[in-house]
């Protein structure tokens, strides 16, 4: 397990699949977590193996990917349902939740990543 800072944000593939969010293409574009090689190795993982990302606000399982240029201990998940499972919902008195800079732990897992519909279903109370 590593301690990281989570950033979410746009990617071109996430943007190009915005209007087909029920598709595999959108899942592929938005359901992953990028780490640098060093962090990935520290977890004993290779690309596309799943990680469990945990923050004070929730957990999510997504496949790992490499971004060689990421600094140590900063991880990135494209904006979308998977990132939003773990971002900070507090609006800090100005309306905006915390989509970037969320302290997160990342660890290896054998749990599967949920599809969009499965993930949404977990919010039914």
């Amino acid at each position, binding site marked *: 397990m590593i301690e990281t800072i989570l950033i979410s944000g746009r990617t*071109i593939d996430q943007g*190009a699949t915005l209007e087909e969010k029920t598709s595999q293409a959108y899942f592929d574009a938005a359901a992953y977590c990028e780490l640098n090689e060093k962090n990935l190795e520290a977890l004993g993982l290779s690309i596309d193996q799943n990680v469990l990302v945990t923050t004070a606000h929730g957990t999510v399982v997504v496949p790992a990917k490499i971004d060689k*240029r990421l600094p140590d201990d900063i991880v990135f998940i494209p904006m979308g349902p998977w990132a*939003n499972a773990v971002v900070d919902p507090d609006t800090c008195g100005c309306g*905006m*939740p915390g989509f970037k800079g969320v302290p997160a732990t990342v660890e290896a897992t054998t749990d599967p990543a949920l599809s969009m519909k499965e993930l949404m279903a977990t919010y039914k109370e």
Partner: protein
Amino acid sequence: MPVIKDAVCTLCGCLCDDLEVTVEDNKITKVGKACKLGRAKTMGPFLHERIEKPMIRENGELKECSYDEAITKAAEILVAAKRPMSYGWCSTSCEAIEKAVLLAEETGSLIDSTANVCHGPSALAAQEKGAPTCSLGTPKNYADLIIFWGCNPVHAHPRHQTRYSTMAKGAFTPNGKKDRKMVVVDPRNTDTAKKADLLLQLKPGTDYVLIEALRAIVNGHEDVLPDEIAGMPKEKVLEFAEMCKAAKFGVLYFGMGITQTRGRYKSGDNVSSLISDLNQITKFVMIGMRGHYNVTGFGQVASWETGFPMAIDFSRGYPYYNPGETGTNDVLMRREVDAFITGAADPGAHFPQESIKHLFNIPAIQIDGYANPTTEFSDVVIPAAIAGVECDGTAYRMDCQPIRMKKLVETTFKSDEEILTDLINKVRELKGAEGAKGGV
């Protein structure tokens, strides 16, 4: 083959208006000049899973229904609600936004745009300090220094750099990139940063601190600065400041790295002051890299209609505004909202988990062309035409330039504007003698 020239791309805030769209048998078969995003958007109606029929949720399942049934059900939900929230309205026309504002007024609703999770803090910053900005063509012609701060146009605004900024050729920048320097400020070494002359890889959440240091330098107080600023050596910050001061025309494009990080709008607010300070030395402007193609339009329309750009509360009959109190995620987090309507946006995909949990608890209405995470919790789903592809109207580019979107193909789907008009009429009918809720 009919080719529609100078068509407007309706995906991101660049609102490129030079597309060449080939239409065969009322189908778009080719989109010239567009980027990957624009092509996906413009071809979308012919490739993706459309919401074909109106639906109402019964016993947990969405069931097809008639359009009138869906409108009636939606109106009933809104009229019965004490704290309804209307959200989205950014990937649609200004004409539709005006109707959404009217519907919110008539139902004593809150109404907010996708700026709530995007550039809302930029509006708050403008309220603090103003917005020293310009049209996108100005840097194209003038800028010899381009700064991308907390934004990643290679991914989010793919044609920005060729049409308007880094690579664009203009009157005083005839050689494009050769006539400019480009700086990226980002915790990540992004794809945009690859071509940067300088990358300031700051520690996440220290944007405000870096801006403070830059302002201190510009105002002649570099002597007080510590050796390390925002996780970087002081020298790097000084180098950046020197580049800014040496520029003849500098432009700072900023994104959600400014708006969503620690301190929220206080960073954007301070950027505005930095720009003002830099104008003591040279010419500098800033431009927010708006995401949805017409999120700027929502801010414009809402401002002239209600006085406020977003997060508007009509519960008392006149508009009240206070993000933190009246923003969509503020009231969802507090679980105040008792009915929800969204159009031309996907809160299901873009809201934090806590807000979505509440959306599953309350009646929700979705107006959209495509099924998406919002559909999962919606109780009434009304299919809509895709604005900018299937219907025309006005949109405002990220630099507040109004552009007329073209209708590229015919459709049998109703536009957002028509659907909202039907809803307003139904709401009026249901309220009948009771009159308008809120303020009468």
